């Protein structure tokens, strides 16, 4: 039963399978075994960021293009739900309309950016997406009559989603389905073409693949995945704003998740997102202890300051790119072989 569900792309490592099962079980049982609002927040964030990281991995790991506009699409999703629920009332109809509009807008922007820059060079695409994403962020904070500026939008949801448990399981179920859909896409013939473009663009083109078309479509799918994650995150937070969805910090977070988890392996984004969100939420506490323990030594307490967790993840990121390009998943799989 598992094989068709996972699109034939099995974990291929006992340790990896165990880790994935553990993550899934922990997420399903989170409301019961980890009581408290904070841990439920962490669990929901993990579920959403798995989808966000997986959709980014489709671009970075499978197609070999670096985009810095992924948070822009995440934000479009968030604002889609937020604006619809705030302006048209908290009904299912407005949620559906807002989601549909957000997905359409994302697809249109992704195609436009792709056509403008994907035909030239990978590096060009990275620079242009960075500029466009920065522009979008400015737009969201400047158009305050529409978006609430820096404060963002608070909104309420249909009555059925009022209990936290109901929205949690909605988010979890939707995230799981989205992840499986992405897994299906990368294991389809379409996904194989993307891999061939990543490996050797020149040869793929010589074999008759229209690489620009495939890249643009991949960019579109990645954008739609990010938008869907944005929709879910807004539903969970009942809030949307520039800092929660559009900020460049989140873009950096996604990069770290995908690279540390393992590029070009969908499961990498599960592990990467889980580890990263846990680190973001709990590593500070651990570092507070460590920082206190070395308080006599010069400079060390500053380096171990609870807010410097990103420094150490950054170092880990660079080391990963050099030495473990396939990340944690690649390590786990190599051990078996």
């Amino acid at each position: 039963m598992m094989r068709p569900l996972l699109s034939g792309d099995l974990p291929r490592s006992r340790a990896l399978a165990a880790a994935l099962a553990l993550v899934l079980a922990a997420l399903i049982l989170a409301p019961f075994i980890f009581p408290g609002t904070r841990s439920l927040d962490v669990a929901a964030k993990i579920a959403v960021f798995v989808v966000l990281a997986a959709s980014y991995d489709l671009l970075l790991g499978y197609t070999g293009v670096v985009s810095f506009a992924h948070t822009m699409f995440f934000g479009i999703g968030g604002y889609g739900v937020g604006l619809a629920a705030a302006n048209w009332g908290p009904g299912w109809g407005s949620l559906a309309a807002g989601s549909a509009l957000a997905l359409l807008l994302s697809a249109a922007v992704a195609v436009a950016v792709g056509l403008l820059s994907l035909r030239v060079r990978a590096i060009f695409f990275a620079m242009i997406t960075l500029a466009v994403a920065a522009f979008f962020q400015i737009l969201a904070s400047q158009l305050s009559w529409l978006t609430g500026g820096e404060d963002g939008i608070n909104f309420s949801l249909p009555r059925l989603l009022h209990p936290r448990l109901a929205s949690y399981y909605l988010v979890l179920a939707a995230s799981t389905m989205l992840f499986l859909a992405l897994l299906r896409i990368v294991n389809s013939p379409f996904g194989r073409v993307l891999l061939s473009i990543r490996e050797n663009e020149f040869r793929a083109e010589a074999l008759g693949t229209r690489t620009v078309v495939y890249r643009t479509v991949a960019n579109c799918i990645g954008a739609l995945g990010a938008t869907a994650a944005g929709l879910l995150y807004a539903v969970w937070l009942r809030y949307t704003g520039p800092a929660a969805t559009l900020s460049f910090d989140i873009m950096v977070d996604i990069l770290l998740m995908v690279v540390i988890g393992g590029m070009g392996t969908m499961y990498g984004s599960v592990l990467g997102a889980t580890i990263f969100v846990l680190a973001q939420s709990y590593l500070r506490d651990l570092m507070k202890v460590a920082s206190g323990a070395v308080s006599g030594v010069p400079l060390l307490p500053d380096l171990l300051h609870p807010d410097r967790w990103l420094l150490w993840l950054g170092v880990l990121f660079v080391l990963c790119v050099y030495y473990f390009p396939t990340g944690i998943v690649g390590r786990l799989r190599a051990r078996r072989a």
Partner: protein
Amino acid sequence: MKRDWLPLALLAVLILGALPLVASLPIWITLTVAGLAMGLMIFMMASGLTLVFGLMDVMNFAHGVFISVGAYAAASVLLALKGQAQAPGLAANLAAIGAAVLAAIALAAALGWFFERVVIRPVYGDHLRQILVTMGGLIVVEQLIIVFWGPDLISLPRPTALTGSFIFGDAAIERYRVLAVAAGLALFGAMWLLLNRTRIGLLVRAGVENAEMVEALGYRVRRLFVGVFVVGSALAGLGGAMWAMYQESVNVQMGMQVLVMIFIVVIIGGLGSVGGCFVGALLVGLMANYTGFLAPKLALGSNILLMVLVLLWRPRGLYPVAK
């Protein structure tokens, strides 16, 4: 080789076209000088990036961090030399600024050398990993800046001699902007002479065209790479110091904010082209100031608009480098 004057004509059209729209000569003069000053500061920061890309095919996403480091170094020196910087005499002021700028250049150059050695050397020729690794370097150095200087915005009062404005008739021109224009033009001139009139410049230009051939002729292109990278980083540090005095504050995010603008400039100019970078920087600086006056709502988007228009006209930038 035939010179391509069209982009320069575009620049002239923009400057002259703004006059009837602004409809007031003094305001137009103020805006034009402000735009040129901004453009030349951007050019200082962007020229290193485009040169490094042209020669080494390396796009350094951590370039913004060199700008921040330069800005922080300059701020530290200026705050330490508060006595000289706030004294009424011009000489003392200039000495303080000189020391600050030198510190910025030195620190950024040292960081650049370390970066080339440790971070970028293993990933030559691999764009994907270059982008990732330099992004990682950006995260790490940005966090280190917080470790050494703290996370808060540091305000930086401008030295006394550079506050206030010159008044010509009805037009007021800030003194600092005049200094920025002079420094920027001097830098562009020096760079032009270095690239076009010296042996090293010849090698760099040859390396941009065909690095393999230069190597085959017996020159060590690799050593040239290191030099250009260090100079590019030093320029970013210099630009960061100038930018910090222009904004009268430094914060950790400034490098990233400026980097977006620099990317737009480099794309407009054509990746790897110093001349294109110069024209692009001036276009962006002028455009930002004119639209800031004419349509403040549009000002923040004007750069992107300009980039899209230029790319529709010339998809590879104003002065595409043949590759």
